[in-house]
């Protein structure tokens, strides 16, 4: 599975939707995800990819992981993966 596919599948599982129902323009609001759900997604991503993703719920815009849209989340995680890769 590509990284994007893995990310989509994690988000889909959290939302209890199928991957095909997700749109890259989806936001936490459209997906029905509150702050607790976002933190769980973060945990699942870290576990799945085996890396630490910096994110502080008090300063969500301050870089690290961008939850504003699904597209932003994917590109943010991919950027971290690229950094972590040898």
């Amino acid at each position, binding site marked *: 599975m590509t990284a994007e596919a893995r990310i989509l599948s994690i988000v889909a599982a959290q939302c209890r939707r199928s991957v095909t129902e997700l749109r890259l323009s989806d936001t936490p609001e459209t997906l029905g995800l509150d702050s607790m759900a976002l933190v769980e997604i973060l945990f699942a991503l870290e576990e799945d990819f085996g890396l630490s993703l910096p*994110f502080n*719920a*008090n300063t969500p815009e301050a870089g690290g992981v961008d939850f504003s849209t699904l597209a932003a989340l994917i590109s943010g995680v991919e950027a971290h993966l690229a950094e972590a890769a040898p």
Partner: protein
Amino acid sequence: MRRVVITGAGTVNALARDVRGTFEAFRAGRSGIGPLELPDLERLQIRIGAQIRDWQPEALFAKAKLALYDRFTQFALVAGAEAMDQAGLVLNEALSHRAGVILGSAGGGLTTSDAAYREVYQEGRARVHPFTVPRLMNSAAASHLSMAQGLKGPVFSVASACAGSNHAMGLAFQLIRGGAADVMLCGGAEAMLSFGGLKAWEGLRVMSPTGCRPFSADRDGMVMGEGAAVFVFEELAHARARGAEILAEVAGFGMTADAAEIVLPSAEGAARAMRAALQDAGLRPDEIGYINAHGTATLANDRSESTAIREVFGDSPPPVSSTKSMHGHAMGATGAIELLACLLALREGVLAPTLGHNAPDGECLADVVANQARVAKPRATLSNAFAFGGLNAVLALKAL
């Protein structure tokens, strides 16, 4: 109606090992937050805290007793001894039956369980110390305090996350007011600053890697502290009859639940708790000259608490400060440590500052006694605790 006063206070926290030292730190605006000294620190994302450094229990307790005392119990015992020493009570058999202990703690003997898990799961050892259970139980500190001080009335501990101390003190107040006890040692104790404790907190993503800046526009989360504070609450006539020095009156207590979210706070629940405390105390909002905030420096709490305070106190609330900026968030002990700031205000006319206030946040309160202590002598104060799970507990103290 029976009235309740405070006749003794004791504490250990990141600022000092006693009340006098804590008051000095409050006046000086000194922070106890710094780099943590812990095993496996490199495995933690959060590496700062308000830690009690160079704690040497072997110097404080007999070896045989120490085998039974988790770190949180040790803190409670030292704070309790200071409080009882100040109160100068002479405990005869009759009084001992009418005297008890209620302490708040969020995690109880976490240092003990952390060590036991490490031994069994990480090191593969075949056994843990036989006293592991009596050390880690949440009530251990309350029990040991009752034993150390000979208190044989109501003794138990209370769990309401970060509101534990306030609930413990509130219940002690109600017990005395209601006639079930004449003297109660009350407060809280917490020692969650272990590798396991911090690792657990990291996942929630509410901790700051940089510092504790309550109500500041650039705040980025909480910083954990540890310690204990214990007070002697006493029935007023009993205190006067023996010529005790009265530190303040416990005027009222309010407790409410948000019944909303398990982590995020609700301004509505917080406002109701403050109103309930005021009503219980027979005080009007304009009679409050200082509020010690819950003020964790999270985005959510500080906004929600500011809204709640404005709702109850209107557009010109009294000065509010969060001393978590100095002693960190001491969890189940934090409400008790923070009550000391109320005593400083009432008795010595100094409002402890909110450190790290770099820029005002439009959604937060304007007057947070920013960065420097202030001379002011309120006649009455509120102390707020708004915990995870929507548990709100507010104490009102008044000068006597």
